[in-house]
């Protein structure tokens, strides 16, 4: 549409108002915009035409362009743009009215064309979809027709077959009569003597009695088969029930200890939940319960299993979430460093052990040599006997010393590996701690702004460890990479950092032991101290859960929520213990 504007530019301002009004009108119509957008790329000529138009009229060739346009328009049947000429020589003037009329007419025409185009396009679309539909119908019809053809052919074939079979039967009947009625002497059995029956009995006459007996026997066979199958099914059922029971038991045992842990810590757990579970377990103890195959028992069993399964599922899901959270946190660097340190340290220790071993060996060799040297000389041996004895004693003493040393080294090594294991455990605990903390943080941020009580838990863990920060002498605060980390991880990281600096293994071991003792006590302290905040903190997720599971059965949802909260809690804190 812009091209129209470029054309209107040279026209005096009095007219441009009208024209611009028209152009704006055409611009406003979405169809025209659409059409232009559609048409322009589709026609490569259109662009060149525009360019031509742009260059068509300039300041210099206004007259020529007007006359050209006049010519073009008149050939298209529009009235002339010039005023009626009065004299031949006089230069004709441009008739503005005619120009405007012309433009107006052109615009109207253009709009009409656009409308028509639009109509055609919609029609085209419609036709396209119609075509598709018809093609579908056609293929369907074709299939149906083919099926009909097959069916009709089949019926025809069957009919013909029947006809032929009837004929064939007639022939057969005829043949049968012929064969039978001819008194076919040839058809006979030539036997030396009749043989006894396989069972040794004589053939009985066929009577109504034997018929009844046959029936009876048939039903007996059937009955025994059904009995056997029923037995099999019963067995299978029993086994399945057993499996179900086992599953239920295992599920309960899996879920209950985690529930009971917080009970030890906090006294005010609602009794109903546990009693529910206890009821279940009590039911289980009835060994013969599953013998009853009545509906109620079955329902109970399946319901309880479903319930437990739901709990387990949500628990597993939660664990998954935790794991993913842990993975998200930038942990890797620390882990790598610690492992490297660990390896270095073990290498060092191994080297030390190796050296010690070598030393012992050389000592041994020397001893041996001395021994052999003394044995060589028989005469001197008598003289040296007492000396040898002394020497031997001395050597034995030395040997014992070495042994002790070796033992010490072994001990050191073992203790180091133990420390490493503990380290791993602590790290794991820290990860879980962190996950829990992050979750709490998240919950706080989202919904429980008013209740800041949850913060008490991770904070407490943090504060518990803060004392130890002072205890660890070799710590380098600058290396703390994770500012959010709670007590155990800080300890762990510090421990690993301190490793390369430590001069000897025994010292290291001592520090580790010291720290581990501290940490265990601190965590216990925390557990005792922070009962109140914990309690609040536990209730929050519980509420959340019960909301989520309201759609399920009321009972199941409730108990599930409790246990879920409990398990969550127990993992966050219980595993912190070394």
């Amino acid at each position: 549409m812009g091209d129209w504007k470029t054309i209107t530019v040279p026209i005096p301002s009095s007219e441009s108002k009208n024209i611009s009004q028209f152009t704006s009108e055409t611009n406003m119509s979405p169809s025209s915009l659409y059409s232009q957008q559609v048409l322009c790329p589709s026609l490569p000529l259109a662009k060149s035409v525009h360019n031509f138009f742009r260059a068509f009229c300039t300041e210099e060739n206004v007259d020529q362009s007007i006359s050209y346009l006049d010519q073009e328009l008149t050939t298209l049947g529009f009235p002339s743009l010039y005023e009626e000429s009065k004299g031949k020589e006089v230069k004709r003037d441009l008739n503005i009215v005619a120009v405007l009329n012309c433009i107006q007419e052109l615009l109207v025409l253009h709009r009409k064309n656009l409308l028509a185009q639009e109509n055609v396009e919609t029609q085209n679309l419609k036709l396209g979809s119609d075509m598709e539909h018809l093609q579908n119908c056609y293929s369907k019809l074709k299939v149906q027709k083919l099926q009909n053809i097959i069916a009709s052919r089949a019926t025809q074939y069957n009919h013909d077959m029947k006809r032929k079979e009837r004929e064939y039967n007639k022939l057969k009947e005829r043949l049968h009569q012929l064969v039978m009625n001819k008194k076919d002497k040839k058809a006979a059995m030539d036997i030396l003597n009749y043989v006894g029956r396989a069972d040794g009995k004589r053939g009985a006459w066929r009577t109504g009695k034997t018929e009844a007996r046959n029936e009876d026997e048939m039903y007996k066979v059937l009955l025994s088969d059904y009995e056997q199958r029923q037995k099999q099914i019963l067995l299978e059922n029993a086994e399945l029930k057993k499996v179900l029971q086992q599953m239920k038991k295992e599920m309960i045992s899996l879920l209950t200890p985690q529930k009971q842990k917080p009970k030890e810590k906090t006294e005010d757990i609602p009794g109903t939940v546990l009693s529910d579970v206890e009821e279940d377990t009590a039911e289980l103890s009835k060994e013969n319960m599953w013998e009853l195959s009545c509906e109620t028992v079955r329902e109970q069993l399946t319901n309880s299993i479903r319930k437990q399964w739901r709990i387990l599922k949500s628990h597993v899901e939660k664990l998954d979430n935790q794991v993913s959270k842990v993975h998200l946190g930038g942990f890797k660097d620390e882990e790598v460093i610690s492992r490297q340190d660990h390896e270095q340290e073990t290498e060092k220790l191994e080297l030390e052990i190796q050296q010690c071993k070598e030393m012992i060996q050389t000592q041994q060799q020397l001893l041996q040599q001395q021994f052999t040297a003394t044995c060589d000389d028989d005469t001197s041996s008598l003289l040296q006997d007492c000396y040898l004895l002394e020497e031997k004693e001395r050597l034995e003493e030395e040997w014992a010393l070495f042994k002790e040393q070796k033992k010490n080294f072994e001990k050191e090594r073992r203790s180091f590996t133990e420390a490493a294991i503990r380290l791993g455990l602590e790290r794991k605990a820290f990860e879980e701690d962190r996950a829990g903390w992050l979750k709490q943080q998240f919950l706080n941020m989202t919904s429980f702004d008013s209740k800041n009580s949850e913060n008490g838990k991770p904070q407490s863990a943090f504060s518990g460890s803060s004392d130890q920060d002072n205890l660890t002498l070799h710590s380098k605060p600058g290396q703390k990479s994770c500012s959010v980390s709670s007590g155990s991880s800080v300890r762990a990281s510090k421990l690993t950092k301190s490793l390369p600096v430590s001069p000897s293994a025994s010292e290291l071991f001592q520090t580790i032991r010291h720290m581990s003792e501290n940490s265990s006590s601190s965590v216990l302290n925390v557990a005792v101290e922070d009962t109140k905040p914990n309690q609040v903190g536990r209730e929050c997720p519980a509420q959340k859960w019960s909301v989520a599971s309201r759609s399920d059965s009321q009972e199941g949802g409730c108990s599930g929520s409790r246990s879920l909260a409990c398990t969550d809690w127990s993992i966050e804190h219980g595993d912190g213990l070394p």
Partner: protein
Amino acid sequence: MRPPQPLGAGAHPVPPRGCQLLSQLQPEEALLPLPSRVSRALRALVYWPAAALASVMNFSEVFKLSNQLSKFSPNGKFLASCVQYRLVVRDVSTLQIFQLYTCLDQIHHLEWSADSLFILCAMYKRGLVQVWSLEQPEWHCKIDEGSAGLVASCWSPDGRHILNTTEFHLRITVWSLCTKSVSYIKYPKACQQGISFTKDGRYMALAERRDCKDYISLFVCSDWQLLRHFETDTQDLAGIEWAPNGCVLAAWDSCLEYKILLYSLDGRLLSTYSAYEWSLGIKAIAWSPSSQFLAIGSYDEKVRILNHVTWKMITEFGHPATINNPKIVVYKETEKSQNLEMENLPFPPTKAAASSLFNTETKYEVASSPVSLQTLKPLTDRPNPKIGIGALAFSPDNCFLATRNDNIPNAVWIWDIQKLKLFVVLEHLSAVRSFQWDPQQARLAVCTGRSQVYLWSPAGCVSVQVPAEGDFQILSLCWHQSGDSMALLSKDQLCLCYLENEGVK
């Protein structure tokens, strides 16, 4: 060997009574030095992939045979085989001739009675059945169906009645060996498998056709009383088969319609099953020995397994030509590379050398994961297209199912029934002729018309060359009931193969 006798009316060149007149035997057969059991020269030392199969395989000498007629007696003591018009019964343990009978004409069918006391020989061209007694060689029995003709003959399970089907399926004649009585059953249906006895031999089911409708009759075998008679909802009943427990009868429609019906012993319809419409349907079925599964092989190259509780499909096994799953072991038979030393070959080649040239030994190789099997493009414009599951059999322990897809003729599929999935595929160089499970354990014997016998067990598989002179093309095989040996049958020869486990020797 005497050429087959022309069916001249008067000509009776064969002695009328069959008895063991050694003078009538061909000298080579009569004077065969038969050492106890096997000639040890023909022993193939086979080292199995695992000791579970067998460590040593012995092969007997080769005996003459016609029409591939050779059967072990049900008690496992004897082996009956036919050579033209003669019936030879050998002791299985020594392979010495125990009895020799001479029939009136070339034998077309041979069957032992269930108690192993009698042997039935049918001569269809003459409409004759001759019965021989093992205990009393002089006892004889000849049944002539006369102008009615004879197309099939079989024992009843008690071993005292013979059921003869006359030409055009006009009737079934039941001849008793105990009494003079003869009974007829009219309207038997001419179909794939029209007679089926329960395993315990108590009942017989018979497919019938009357007024263009299919019926099944159930008879009590002890006195041939008609127990049940009912119409089946089939277009063209193709076959019937009892479940091994004798309580369920499967009846299936002709291949034009996929339909299988299951009837109780008392004639109640238990269930019907149809997998699809329009295209060709059931080709073969097999009951599992436990009666728990019914496997149905069909023209769509699938096996469907029904369960015995709901009679609904448990699973379906497709038989694709490419096997992508690397967990499935594909054993491919390959020829052992022979170092042909041309300069060492005598000219003209001796018989032995020639046979060894043609009988290249083969072995199985494990093919690597994406395996494409050789397929046969079935001709759609011919009837009975070579496509679909034409043969299937459960192992005696119900654990495996062996199948053959007729348009992948060289392969045997072995399915694990406990896991309900494909376990092993054996691909051979030639089309599989037949396969049979060892009656005692999960061990499958396969033959392909070459001179090798193939054995598979979960422990592995092996291809064994029959060390017979000349070309011994195994066309079919049958196991001895003990599972210690099997008879390998070629077009005109018979060879026994003994499988010895290490523990035995």
